[in-house]
């Protein structure tokens, strides 16, 4: 259903072939396809309309340069324009006030405000070395305050205790006093989820804003949101002087068109992206990657970064050395690579991040999650000694390993052969220029055979 834009355009592009210049008439069809792709990515219609017009303006008269096909040139324009709309460069968080700097979180129910507050606290403590106080003004949802208290405990941030019966405004003023007394650099104020049409609740948060005078008022938006993202963003940006956006749940498989809708309405930069349920899952937002994602062009950079983050750096370097030389690389290392791959969400999660053509190709290679799991099972059934010296595995050991992992002896044999081939490959690669490439995709070896 979610056909990729690149694929969609390839049909149209054929008609564009051989034209030296993009004109109003020859991009008409292509623009239609862009519109459909953006609708499928959940970009709101008003945002699409403006965007298409801009692309048209830029594309017409665009010279088709060098080796590019007209289609490629057109996609380039679309991508650049999308990036520009989403803010070009990444925007940092602003803490330039006399402390405590207040950050107010606002958004719909279930957008991820409380989780993002916890993540932001952790990020500020680790990256900016700030002393952070977490405050919850969500007196409505059962256990919302306890949730933030637990997150504070997990991150090591301070938590402002709320007395029962306290109203959000009272909580805010008391928390500010508390932060001044205890010399907190940053106060993150979490609020209850609310609907944009709920006048009483919108008034409440607007009062909180006037009371707290936050340096950052962040609108927390769910990346899976559909067309209504514009209405919600509009209601919040009218009630509050927003300074930025946190886009959550980007680790899902939604294309995230909401990013464009929200940006279109608020005009504010997306400052962070929520990318995992863990408290470390908050990243700066990269407009270029988001543009690729909305267009279905894959997020290769994100994949590489994820590999770097989840792979233990020293471990990876040790493995790299072994892999480079092909010496001493044994099944223990092989096993570790499986585990690292799992940390990254498994093979199919990685495939999702690849550009369309690549992931298609990979699927044709029949990368089967089950096969990988079985392989890991077989390795897990070996003793450490066997993993270190696979050559000692003879018939009797093979039978035991097969029985232990629920596999057949043939499967054990196949694994050992594959491993031997991989080891040989590494030696070969060492001679060629492949080492560089392997460094970029380290940790991915088992699935790449």
């Amino acid at each position: 259903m979610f056909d990729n834009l690149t694929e969609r355009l390839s049909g149209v592009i054929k008609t564009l072939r051989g034209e030296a210049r993009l004109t109003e008439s020859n991009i008409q069809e292509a623009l239609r396809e862009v519109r459909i792709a953006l609708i499928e990515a959940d970009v709101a219609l008003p945002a699409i309309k403006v965007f298409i017009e801009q692309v048209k303006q830029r594309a017409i008269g665009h010279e088709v340069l060098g080796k590019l096909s007209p289609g490629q040139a057109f996609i380039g324009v679309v991508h650049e324009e999308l990036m520009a709309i989403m803010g070009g460069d990444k925007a940092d968080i602003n803490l330039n006030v006399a402390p405590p700097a207040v950050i107010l979180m606002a958004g719909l129910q279930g957008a991820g405000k409380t989780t993002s507050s916890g993540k932001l606290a952790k990020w500020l403590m680790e990256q900016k070395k700030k002393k952070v106080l977490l405050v919850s003004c969500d007196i409505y949802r059962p256990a919302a305050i306890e949730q933030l208290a637990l997150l504070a405990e997990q991150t090591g941030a301070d938590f402002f205790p709320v007395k029962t019966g306290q109203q959000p405004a009272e909580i805010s003023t008391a928390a500010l006093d508390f932060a001044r007394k205890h010399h907190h650099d940053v106060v993150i104020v979490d609020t209850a989820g609310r609907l944009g049409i709920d006048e009483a609740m919108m008034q409440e948060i607007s009062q909180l804003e006037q009371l707290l005078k936050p340096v950052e008022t962040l609108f927390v938006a769910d990346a899976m949101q559909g067309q209504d993202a514009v209405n919600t963003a509009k209601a919040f940006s009218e009630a509050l002087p927003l300074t930025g956006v946190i886009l959550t749940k980007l680790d899902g498989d939604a294309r995230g068109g909401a990013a464009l809708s929200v940006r279109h309405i608020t005009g504010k930069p997306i400052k962070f992206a929520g990318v995992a349920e863990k408290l470390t899952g908050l990243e700066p937002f990269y407009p270029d990657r988001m543009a690729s994602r909305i267009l279905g062009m894959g997020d290769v950079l994100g994949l590489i970064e994820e590999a770097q983050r989840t792979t233990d750096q020293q471990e990876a370097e040790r493995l790299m050395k072994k892999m480079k030389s092909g010496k001493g690389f044994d099944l223990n290392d092989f096993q570790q690579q499986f585990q690292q791959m799992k940390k990254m969400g498994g093979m199919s999660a990685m495939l999702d991040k690849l550009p369309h053509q690549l992931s298609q190709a990979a699927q044709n290679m029949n990368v089967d999650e089950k096969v990988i799991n079985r392989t890991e099972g077989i390795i897990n059934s070996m003793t450490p000694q066997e993993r270190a010296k696979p050559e000692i595995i003879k018939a009797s050991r093979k039978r035991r390993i097969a029985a232990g992992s629920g596999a057949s002896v043939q499967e054990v044999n196949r694994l050992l052969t594959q491993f031997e081939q991989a080891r040989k490959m590494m030696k070969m690669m060492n001679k060629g220029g492949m080492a560089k490439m392997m460094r970029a995709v380290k940790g991915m070896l088992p699935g790449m055979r």
Partner: protein
Amino acid sequence: MFSIFKSKKNSDEKNPAQIEAESVSFADKIRQGLTRTRQQLGKQLSGLFGGRKIDEDLYEELETALLTADTGIEATNRLLESLRTRVKRDALDDSEQLKTALQDALTELLQPLERPLVTTGHQPFVIMIAGVNGVGKTTTIGKLAHYFQSQGHSVLLAAGDTFRAAAQEQLKVWGERNQITVISQESDPGKKGDPAAVIFDAVNAAIARKIDIVLADTAGRLTTQLHLMEEIKKIKRVVAKAIPDAPHEVLLVLDANTGQNAVSQLKAFNDALGVTGLVMTKLDGTAKGGVIAAIAAQFADNPLALRFIGVGEGLDDLRPFNAREFAEALFD
């Protein structure tokens, strides 16, 4: 969808007594909702139908209205196609007739989803709730418990979200307010943090206490988190160890705010669990939840039942889904 079924926001979970006092009938709720619909989308839609000729411009505006409600390209095309056929077949020539025709087309598309949940035949009847993060699973469980209780059933809750901070507390607080037993991991510290164990215990407790309905909460999970998708498969397998044909219903909760990703969510959870019913929450906002039409079109061969829709924050605001009302309210 199209922001119908609005309920007046009168209270929230804190105050069930107040809600009961304010016994607004279903028809009233829809009427109230419609007032808001007219205010919000009124211009856009009633303008379309205000004694105009049927021309291409009108179709184009209809397309925009449908897409704005998240119906997606496929369902929108299908609806418009069906509309064109009706216009030709019945020689319709004014926009009022077109309105009725579109209502019919939409009802026809959504009709297969209208199958209420029947809980008789099993005791306890085990309902497992699943969904991505933040769609309103725990809140829905509260409303479901209230719904079943008001029908005279006894209910037990299983706090199967052992992952998110304070999720179990959220359910327990709710259970205390409404005098409903909640089984959570504290009841057996030895099985700390294992959702399958908590739910298994809850099912066994329900058997022992002769409870009618077990509502099992699970942690929100994105479909890309494969280990969590494996975990939820395991929960289902373990439940079947307590009662062989349980869970009797696997409810997937969808957020009306979600765009086309709801279709992928359904696919992934259906592959993992065999979803038997859907709940769509948060229809009391401006979101129209039209993605349900996209789902109806995508799963036309094997339609899933949309059991309930959430139309407000009050305990009463969970309603069985009715396709005709849904479609009629839209263009009334």
